[in-house]
């Protein structure tokens, strides 16, 4: 056997070793490419939607507000046309809308044309293109934010077949002419790059010559550094990728991966989202000029940002168009036409969310049921109860008033802060949430996190506890508002004073609440027992433990605006506790329902005392500390509410409800400094302005069977009649109204009232008889 020279043998070993090593590396890279490319799911943020506006005969929405919402949805105003959906045409008292398709939680709604007819702020009729009545149709909901993966990467996946061919042509003409024929790399480009690298050894920097496949590999698997080694890895992986996957698949992934700009803190990835972000439309509706603009931006999304550098973007777009024409992908006519088109941008969206405070609430409620990682990557679709009109009204009312307060320095130095929560009293759904005067600020959320003393807002719980004992307490039971000292072991004497520093002697119960008298309320609360009152507070839905001190009753307790909303929610819904919630449904990215957050009601307090309490809270607005609401909403609304002011006037609150909305407003300083705030002067105007701008429905409670109304003479608090000056009709649990008649009650008046009663009864009897 001939022995080869030793040196050759070693060389052979080395070669073998090198080959094995290289194969191992390639194998490893191959494994990575296939596993990661296949297993790779784009991290898709959970997308959060506002409520979908329901359009039907009877929807209460002014035409201008609907137009505003359509514009927010990037619907274009133009003459009625067929394609593409996403337009509206305006006439007097009429809107014609080309609705986009949308995947709702309960199925898809196809694109359709509807005509919406208005009559003074109310939808009169909805009909289809042929004039047939449409019972109910939904407008797609506004996307109001997301829960984003690292780097706030946002994208909207598209299939290649939904990308217009013009876009692909422009892309290939500009970025990689030989895409359909090369094997992952472009030899000439590499040689050019290598030559440059050799000539520039010192910096070891390599650039250029990247195919689409290489760019994808770079974005997908590798770090952005530019070294020869990384370039080599990129090349090998690109070749491997081409071996395993087809051109279409690679192209589709590329189109979804690319970075196309920044929306404040949100990174725009993929042509699907870019089409929406820049043009307010789905990718498949992009025209040639728009496609070329996006392709042109690949070179530098910041430099060619069409909203910030319109001229540079336009020139770049036209360059792309020229290349596309020169490559023979488009005709000179198409080129000329596209070149003459303006940029055609839609209004700029608002970063990760225009309503970060509400999104924060949604995120917190979601985290009880979902893994945070899933929320950031699985593309879940979250349907919420946010009403953009209400949210807008709340943000505006708060910002406007705070700016005015700052200017006037009525309550102290500038820098007041505030928070607003608005809910639907029947369902407990949150319609709006404002966490501070700058509603776009994504930080401290006062509506959720600022636990502040609530002042008199807790008083209704005292009166509710009392009114639950109708044999002892009615709305006219005399209460003593004389000086009051509360002694308890281990605590300093507690001696509540009134807001006006006076005592008012004996006052009827309803007036003590209407005027928010502290001494009378403290006496009543301690008479009933602090524990019993706090039990009522818990029943109303306040879960935070409150200290069992007498001072808690007058509002030393700290609560957040959201917790206050929960408490008043139970009162507003007739004693049925309904958890305050922001989420309606969650579906997968493909629209598969995952979870519904169902309406839950739990009867927490009997309806009779709630009815009486509500009447007393209406008294607060009619004749008590809340009467300045008169300058915002008409008395017919009969709103119920309560002011709250805390020690040294540090906090101002107003909580209350109308027939269709409940709102809580807090105003104060973040550092909790002493000020000159009061609920009536600082928080009430925000509440009033907010409600007034939303055309509130009157508050009409269903009256429990065992409640009757009786005329009361306010001078004597005895039974009166309509002939008594200033007589009021008050509700009582049957048999608990004062028996004694006031001297003012005339026989004639009594007769009139009796006849009136008789007529009512007869009418009711007839109603029953005829089953009406």
């Amino acid at each position, binding site marked *: 056997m001939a022995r080869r020279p030793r040196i050759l043998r070693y060389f052979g070993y080395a070669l073998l070793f090198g080959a094995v090593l290289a194969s191992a590396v390639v194998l490893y890279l191959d494994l990575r490419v296939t596993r990661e490319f296949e297993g790779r799911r784009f991290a898709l943020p959970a997308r959060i939607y506002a409520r979908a506006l*329901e359009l039907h005969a*009877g929807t209460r929405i002014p035409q201008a507000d609907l137009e505003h919402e359509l514009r927010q949805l990037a619907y274009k105003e133009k003459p009625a046309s067929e394609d593409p959906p996403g337009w509206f045409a305006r006439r007097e008292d009429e809107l014609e809308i080309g609705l986009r398709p949308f995947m709702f939680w309960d199925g898809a709604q196809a694109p359709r044309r509807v005509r919406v007819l208005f009559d003074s702020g109310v939808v009169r009729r909805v009909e289809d293109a042929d004039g047939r009545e449409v019972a*109910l149709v939904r407008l797609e909901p506004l996307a109001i934010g997301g829960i984003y993966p690292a780097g706030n990467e946002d994208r909207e996946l598209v299939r290649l077949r939904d990308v217009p061919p013009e876009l692909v042509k422009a892309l290939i003409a500009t970025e990689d002419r030989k895409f359909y024929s090369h094997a992952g790399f472009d030899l000439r480009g590499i040689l050019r790059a290598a030559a440059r690298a050799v000539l520039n050894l010192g910096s070891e920097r390599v650039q250029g010559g990247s195919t689409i496949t290489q760019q994808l590999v770079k974005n997908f698997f590798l770090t952005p550094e530019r070294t020869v080694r990384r370039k080599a890895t990129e090349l090998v992986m690109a070749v491997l990728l081409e071996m395993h996957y087809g051109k279409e698949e690679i192209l589709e992934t590329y189109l979804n991966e690319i970075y196309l700009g920044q929306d404040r803190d949100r990174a725009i990835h993929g042509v699907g989202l870019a089409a929406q972000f820049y043009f307010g439309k789905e990718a498949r509706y992009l025209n040639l000029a728009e496609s070329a603009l996006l392709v042109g931006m690949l070179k530098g999304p910041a430099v060619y940002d069409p909203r910030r550098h319109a001229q540079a973007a336009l020139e770049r777009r036209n360059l792309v168009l020229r290349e596309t024409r020169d490559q023979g992908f488009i005709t000179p006519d198409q080129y000329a036409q596209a070149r003459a088109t303006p940029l055609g941008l839609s209004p700029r969206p608002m970063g990760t969310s225009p309503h970060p405070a509400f999104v924060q609430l949604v995120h917190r409620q979601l985290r009880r049921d979902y893994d945070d990682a899933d929320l950031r990557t699985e593309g879940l679709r979250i349907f919420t109860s946010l009403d953009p009109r209400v949210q807008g009204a709340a943000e505006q009312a708060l910002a406007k008033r705070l700016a005015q307060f700052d200017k006037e320095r009525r309550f102290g130095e500038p820098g007041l802060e505030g928070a607003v929560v608005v809910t639907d009293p029947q369902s407990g759904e949150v319609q709006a949430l404002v966490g501070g005067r700058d509603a776009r600020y994504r930080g401290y959320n006062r509506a959720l996190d600022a636990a502040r003393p609530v002042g008199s807002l807790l008083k209704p719980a005292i009166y509710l506890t009392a009114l639950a004992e109708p044999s002892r307490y009615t709305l006219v039971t005399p209460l003593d508002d004389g000086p009051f000292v509360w002694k308890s072991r281990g605590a300093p004497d507690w001696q509540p004073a009134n807001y006006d520093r006076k005592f008012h002697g004996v006052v009827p119960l309803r007036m003590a609440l209407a005027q928010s008298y502290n001494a009378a309320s403290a006496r009543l609360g301690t008479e009933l027992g602090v524990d019993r009152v706090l039990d009522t507070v818990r029943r109303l839905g306040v879960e935070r433990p409150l200290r069992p001190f007498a001072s808690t009753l007058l509002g030393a307790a700290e609560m957040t605006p959201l917790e206050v909303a929960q408490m008043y929610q139970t009162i507003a819904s007739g004693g049925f506790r309904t958890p305050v919630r922001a989420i309606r449904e969650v579906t997968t990215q493909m629209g598969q329902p995952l979870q*519904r957050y169902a309406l839950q009601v739990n009867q927490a307090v009997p309806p009779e005392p709630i009815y009486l309490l509500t009447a007393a809270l209406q008294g607060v607005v009619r004749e008590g500390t809340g009467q300045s609401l008169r300058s915002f909403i008409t008395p017919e609304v009969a709103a119920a509410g309560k002011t709250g002011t805390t020690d040294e006037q540090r906090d101002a609150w107003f909580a209350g409800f109308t027939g269709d909305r409940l709102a809580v407003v807090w105003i104060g300083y973040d550092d909790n400094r002493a000020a000159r705030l009061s609920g009536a002067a600082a928080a009430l105007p925000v509440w009033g302005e907010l409600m007034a701008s939303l055309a509130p429905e009157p508050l009409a409670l269903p009256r429990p*069977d065992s409640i009757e*109304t009786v005329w009361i003479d306010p001078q004597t608090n005895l039974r009166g009649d309509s002939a008594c000056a200033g007589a009021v009709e008050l509700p009582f649990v049957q048999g608990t109204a004062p028996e004694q008649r006031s001297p003012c009650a005339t026989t004639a008046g009594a007769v009139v009232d009796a006849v009136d009663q008789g007529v009512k009864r007869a009418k*009711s009897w007839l109603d029953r008889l005829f089953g009406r």
Partner: protein
Amino acid sequence: MKRFLLCLIVAGCAAPSPAPVEEPSKPEAQKPTETVAVAGLMESARADAAAGRLTNAAASLERALRLEPRNPRLWQELARVRLKQGDFTQAENLAARSSTWAGNDSALRAENWRVIAQAREAMGDGRGAQAARDNAERMAR
């Protein structure tokens, strides 16, 4: 205690009810005068419930309740769906909620008592169920 509360709300259940005297100043009982939109949703909810698609039925009813929150028939339908779903606590509470909006529609309130009776029966509260049935009888008379 809760039972007592429910009693209070739907009618005087312990007290032999006197000829109920209703006053027309009460919010008008909502007779079957749903808008086309709500009627459509109710219909699809009934179809879903009949076919056993209870989640969908509940979703349609909640959607309808957003349009007409004071419609006692919607609350009642939802109570019935919860009953079918085995959520007896909610069935009982929703039926009670329905009655608060039912005004002087005693047929509807009697029906709510029947739903409550079924819910209590299912929860093993025989006596409560009987009391509810008695109330239903009285209301229906």
